[in-house]
């Protein structure tokens, strides 16, 4: 494989298990990105750090390995852009320019996360022609959901183009990290994207523990996996209900929202919180599991009830009519766009970190990857059902065989200036955290990356040629993050 040469041990440093760091020149940056793209690597994250020596970073995943390229960047000249190889790089590069002032050489220089003083002047790409008009939606949306702006160009009922404008929930979290002690950073990490608190806090903890060369006790690692799967089940239950509702089947929302309520109450009994915001701490988990048999019984009940509801969904002709063939992303397009996580798996992108890089409980039980090549709303619904059952199986397995021993260990202050990486398969997809400590026990740089960066552009493609009225359904089938993306 042409990309193998970039992994050569002599030129790389191992920054975590299976994660290599390589410093490159601008020419090598492009050449490596080309070789990696040719071998089917996926761009996990691209970010910049202008604090001391300005640099831009790209993290690429291929099979079970991750390669992080580090390029010293010149703020005047700009670094070589990668948009032609990895379309998702477009917005990441624009965000890096907004936040760190380092620009790429790609042509699209519109701001992304920075709205400036005239946010309504954003240069949307216009569609012209007879009968074409625009529908602006947001930032305040009609439901109880996060804010963002969608600009539809339509002719009649048909959507010709959708362009997203995000960044409304931008809260300056990367700067906020630098004001926190490195131990407290995990609390902010858990609140970057409220529905993925476990995924983010685990990725942050992993980055910190890698820097401090700490291995968490087996029981702690298993309890983290337990929390991550409980988070996946809760979100899938919420989405399955909302998807039924958006297709006009209110029964589905009522039923699934009841299952979700029972689950978060079980969470509260087991870990003291309905949503597991502060369940994880550096070095392990905040408290040991309470009431394993009750939690196991709740999960078994949820699995059984979900099977009943799946049969009802599968036999409901109205739902089938709305789900099948709506919002299709073909596998070839998904590969080209680098779609990831759940949305990617519904379009033939069979990647799951729990399968590709298993550790702890995941290695013990072996995760079955759930994939489809249909790429429509029905496929994204089916993946949620499949993954929910798989997560229930994992939870049952973990609860039955939880290793004894401590649930937490001390984490010494990490060395300053080195790059730590955390990478966790959250319910949406891979959640990535890059962390650099400062000498005084604080955080010099923290970049969290949500899989929604890769998948938002996929939604723009999924809606093409569908009718406007199907957008809420298609959008919900993606259910992407705003806060996690907006930083």
């Amino acid at each position, binding site marked *: 494989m042409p990309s193998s040469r970039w992994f050569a041990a002599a030129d790389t440093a191992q920054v975590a298990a299976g994660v290599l760091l390589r410093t490159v020149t601008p020419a090598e940056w492009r050449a490596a990105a080309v070789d990696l793209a040719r071998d089917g690597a996926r761009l996990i994250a691209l970010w910049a750090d202008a604090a001391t020596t300005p640099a831009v970073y790209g993290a690429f995943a291929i099979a079970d390995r991750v390669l992080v390229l580090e390029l010293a960047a010149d703020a005047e000249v700009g670094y070589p852009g990668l948009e032609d190889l990895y379309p998702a790089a477009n917005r990441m590069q624009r965000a890096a320019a907004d936040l760190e002032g380092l620009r790429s050489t790609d042509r699209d220089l519109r701001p992304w996360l920075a709205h400036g003083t005239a946010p309504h002047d954003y240069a949307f790409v216009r569609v012209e022609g007879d009968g074409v008009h625009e529908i602006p939606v947001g930032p305040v949306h009609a439901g109880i959901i996060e804010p963002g702006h969608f600009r539809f160009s339509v002719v009649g009922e048909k959507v010709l183009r959708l362009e997203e404008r995000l960044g409304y*929930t931008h809260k300056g979290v990367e700067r906020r990290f630098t004001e926190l002690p490195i131990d407290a950073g995990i609390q*902010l990490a858990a609140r970057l994207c*409220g529905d993925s608190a476990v995924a983010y806090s685990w990725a942050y903890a992993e980055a910190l523990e890698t820097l401090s060369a700490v291995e968490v006790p087996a029981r702690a690692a298993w309890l983290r996996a337990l929390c991550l799967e409980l988070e996946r089940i809760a979100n899938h239950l919420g989405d399955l209900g909302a998807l039924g509702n958006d297709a006009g089947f209110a029964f589905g929302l009522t039923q699934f929202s009841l299952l979700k309520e029972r689950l978060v109450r079980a969470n509260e009994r087991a870990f003291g919180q309905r949503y597991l915001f502060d369940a994880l701490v550096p070095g392990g988990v905040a408290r040991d599991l309470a009431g394993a048999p009750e939690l196991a019984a709740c999960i078994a009940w949820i699995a059984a009830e979900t099977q009943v509801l799946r049969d009802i969904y599968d036999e409901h002709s109205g739902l089938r009519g709305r789900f099948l063939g709506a919002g299709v992303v073909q596998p070839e397009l998904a590969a080209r766009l680098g779609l990831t996580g759940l949305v990617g798996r519904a379009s033939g992108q069979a990647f799951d970190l729990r399968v590709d890089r298993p550790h702890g409980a995941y290695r013990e039980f072996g995760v079955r990857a759930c994939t489809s090549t249909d790429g429509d709303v029905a496929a994204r619904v089916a993946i949620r059902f499949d993954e929910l059952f798989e997560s229930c199986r994992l939870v049952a397995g973990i609860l039955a065989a939880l290793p004894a021993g401590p649930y937490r260990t001390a984490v010494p202050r990490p060395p300053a200036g080195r790059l730590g990486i955390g990478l966790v398969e959250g319910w949406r997809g891979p959640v990535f955290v890059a962390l650099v400590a400062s000498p005084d026990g604080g955080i010099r740089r923290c970049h969290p990356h949500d899989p929604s960066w890769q998948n938002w552009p996929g939604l723009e493609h999924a809606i093409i040629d569908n009718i406007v009225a199907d957008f809420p359904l298609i959008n919900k089938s993606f259910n992407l993050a705003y806060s996690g993306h907006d930083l």
Partner: protein
Amino acid sequence: MLKTLRQIARCGIVSEPPPPPADELRLRAALQDEILAIMGRALCIRAVDAGSCNGCELEIQALSNPVYNIEGLGIRFVASPRHADLLLVTGPVSAHMRVALERTHAATPDPKRVVAVGDCGCTGGIFGERGASLGRVANVIPVDVAVPGCPPSPTRLLAAIRAAIAPAGRPREPGSSGR
């Protein structure tokens, strides 16, 4: 269809009684009687995410599940601020959402109530009040009731919503008003 009906029957009624209004969360007591005279006991809520992490939204969504059954109390979420009596606002308010929040507030007819939700809506929370984060909701629009928590439970949210519309300082039986 038979399966659906059987599942509904099997489920039964799972709704729990609502909590009493949380008077201690009230920031402003003005206009109570006037509002009650106009709104009666029914209430339309517009939820506005002004920059939240999406955690509070999960608990606001839970209010509509059959256990909390907020619609059973005569309270409804509506899609337009022009239809709303009360804004349920999560934060911290991001600089980019400031104008949208101000406009949403302006578009809500008087008399109106505002409930700020969550630690971030109450104080700015872990995001603080600096740069892109403008902090608590009250920094941007007037707030009547503020309910802390990260996120506040549906029960606390319901108590706060009821505090925003219940007559101040009058003794009441739990669950007797708002029905």
